[in-house]
């Protein structure tokens, strides 16, 4: 017999060491990861008692009131129901443009309930994963008596709700009172037309502060902020018949030109601070700009993070010969039709924000008055919030009485149309490309897409 090698003087031979190591590795592979893998092979069907997952971009960070609202929502439901709801927070930027939500759905493990905006509505509806919520709603809530018909139309297909919006977030212009005062301006100088806006922005601009701010980063947010400028001139991306594009209209071209001029003239910056145009605190609040195109949600953000900053709000100025409007978007609750318990999830969504019960109406009122500063698409909620004095004064009064009337709901364009619009906007605004050419190219891309489109109605 040959000499055996001993390891480290331990008396263990190399053969024994290898044999024990292999046995250990095999045992670990089988009992550890092996079990995890096996338990993951169960498919998506679950029992009625399994908790429902609710993914949204609110409950984990940002404003305290918003976080509290979601946590209370889940706690209240869980106290009264056997099927529990578990919240999962994903930061907004990741939620809308990240990979978690699409990956989950692609793997057949999408959340049972999830926040969805009009911008992404058709992506999920056409994918067949949205549950009809109307069958769980009271008649008073379904018919146009309670829900704003124009606003809720983009959340419905064939008259049925597939998404329950619980807020309305209009776009407006915010201005710094101090910047106005330093430039010798007052409320009387608030601009009503595009030319007046440029004049005022030029007066308040300094070496360290831009006069004006529009979103410049490509994506959903920039499109959302820009749509109103296109609509005011009579432009649109998709015609009323939904079969062709009128993106190359005069209204579109002048809107592209307007945003281009803001950058070219040096009035507006090419890059935005913080989390983008929606971050009033990081931009106007920090003195980066004097006038900022932002939404109603910023009122709550300023109250929380910059309560001493003096600012005002005015509705979007109009182009020559144009008609005022503004973009009006919102998050809403949708239910995964292929989730583990769509019926129970739908009951939760309706109970939460879509019911005519006092609790549901109060909950929606709390959302727009305490958690955030928004308006509501529901008449009952607006009445209650008005009674509670939410719109008596300050920026919210301006939003309710001046900004909201005439607003247009955020369109539910499929991603291909949004990209065509975004490319035209980016090229015009930041590369100085000819707006007419960009609008024509955008129209061609949209028309090419519409020819093969076969999902739910876009307009």
């Amino acid at each position, binding site marked *: 017999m040959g000499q055996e090698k001993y390891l480290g003087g331990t008396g263990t031979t190399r053969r024994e060491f290898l044999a024990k190591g292999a046995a250990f590795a095999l045992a670990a592979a089988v009992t550890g990861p092996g079990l995890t893998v096996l338990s993951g092979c169960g498919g998506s069907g679950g029992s009625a008692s399994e908790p429902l997952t609710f993914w949204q971009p609110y409950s984990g960070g940002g404003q305290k009131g918003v976080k509290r609202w979601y946590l209370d929502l889940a706690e209240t439901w869980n106290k009264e129901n056997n099927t529990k709801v578990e919240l999962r927070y994903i930061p907004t930027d990741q939620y809308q443009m990240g990979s978690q939500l699409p990956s989950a759905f692609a793997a057949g493990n999408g959340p049972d309930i999830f926040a969805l905006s009009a911008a992404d509505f058709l992506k999920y509806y056409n994918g*067949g994963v949205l549950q009809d919520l109307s069958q769980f709603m009271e008649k008073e809530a379904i018919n146009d008596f309670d829900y704003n018909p124009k606003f809720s139309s983009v959340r419905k297909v064939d008259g049925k709700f597939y998404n329950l919006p619980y807020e309305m977030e209009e776009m407006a212009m915010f201005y710094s009172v101090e910047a106005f005062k330093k430039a010798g301006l007052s409320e009387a100088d608030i601009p009503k037309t595009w030319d007046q806006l440029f004049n005022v922005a030029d007066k308040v601009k300094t070496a360290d502060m831009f006069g004006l701010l529009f979103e410049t980063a490509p994506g959903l947010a920039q499109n959302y902020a820009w749509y109103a400028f296109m609509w005011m001139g009579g432009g649109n991306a998709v015609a009323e018949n939904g079969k062709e594009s009128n993106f190359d209209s005069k209204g579109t071209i002048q809107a592209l030109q307007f945003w281009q001029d803001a950058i070219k003239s040096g009035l507006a910056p090419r890059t935005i601070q913080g989390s983008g145009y929606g971050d009033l605190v990081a931009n106007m609040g920090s003195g980066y700009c004097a006038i900022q195109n932002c939404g109603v949600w910023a009122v709550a953000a300023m109250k929380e993070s910059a309560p001493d900053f003096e600012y005002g709000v005015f509705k979007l100025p109009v182009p020559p010969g144009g008609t005022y409007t503004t973009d009006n978007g919102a998050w809403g609750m949708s239910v995964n039709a*292929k989730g583990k318990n769509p019926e129970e999830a739908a009951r939760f969504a309706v109970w939460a924000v879509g019911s005519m019960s006092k609790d549901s109406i109060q909950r929606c009122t709390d959302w727009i008055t305490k958690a955030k500063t928004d308006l509501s698409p529901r008449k009952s909620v607006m009445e209650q919030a008005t009674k509670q004095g939410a719109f008596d004064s300050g920026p919210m009064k301006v939003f309710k009485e001046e900004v909201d009337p005439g607003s247009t709901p955020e369109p539910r364009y499929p991603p291909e149309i949004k990209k065509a619009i975004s490319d035209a906007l980016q090229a015009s605004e930041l590369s100085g490309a000819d707006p007419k050419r960009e609008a024509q190219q955008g129209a061609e891309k949209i028309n090419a897409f519409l020819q093969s489109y076969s999902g739910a109605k876009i307009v």
Partner: protein
Amino acid sequence: MSVKPSRMAVEMENRLRHKEPTARRRIGRKHREWLAAALFLAPDVLGLLVFLGIPMILSLVLGLFNVSGFGQYTFVGLANYKQMFSDSLYLNSLRVTGIYVFGFVAGLFVASLGLALLVKQKLPFTGVFRSMFFLPQVISLVVVGVVWQFMLNDNIGVLNKLLKSLGFSSYSWLGNPTLALGTVLVVSIWVFMGYYMIIFLAGLQEIPQEYYDAAKVEGASNWQTFRHITWPLLKPTSFFVLLVSTVTGVAGFQAFDLIYIMTKGGPDNSTSLTIYYIYQQAFEYNQFGYAAAMASFLVLILLIVTAAMFILTKGGRFEVG
């Protein structure tokens, strides 16, 4: 009557008896060596197979389907590949990637070699400088992106403030389509130059000091020393740096994080690398099949580029004599 075996027969028998066990031991040891090697390699090979090999094959197959992202798979053959070549945004992303890779590889090579030559000198606090140059490598790319975005801000960013104080104009480093890609490139090089500096430093330290001593005695200048001693003897290291940085640049792993944070592919698609466009197609447009096809094609480009590098540099072999 028994016959006593001859001495020769006994010797032969003994030899055979000793030979058989020896042969058995030789085969046994070889077999054990192979088994040991296989067992040690198994975890890595299994990991590569499960997390790399199989997903790559699945991705290749996925590229032949139209995948909605909600469970619907439709076989479309090569339609996704055909679509790629008529997709102007994809072709733009290839152009942007080409520029990025060229700039990244060249810039990184020069910067890291320069730093390595610098920190090889016997100067005070060399260790501190080496650590400082390497530091960006250990910071999260997300943090790098956020901080640089802040520093490069229009008007009030640190860099523009400095330029203005020196009497220059300020620039929109990330908001101007002609500057944005170069800016991301510079940040990428800043992140990685420390790491490749260490690699070059190791290569430089392998060069025998006697060669430099001899060159000094012969009266060679610094440039002559670099050109005739350092550069040729650094070939294997140089090849490694070129190869790895090319793969990193084409695959865009580090660039994706920076672009996602700093520019989102803008302004006007000027920083839309192929890797970012693939991400958009998959997760913003739910075109998983198309994204998989583009990813497979990117791998093919990478294989061709690296094969070309091996052929042109003869595998980075050190030619003696």
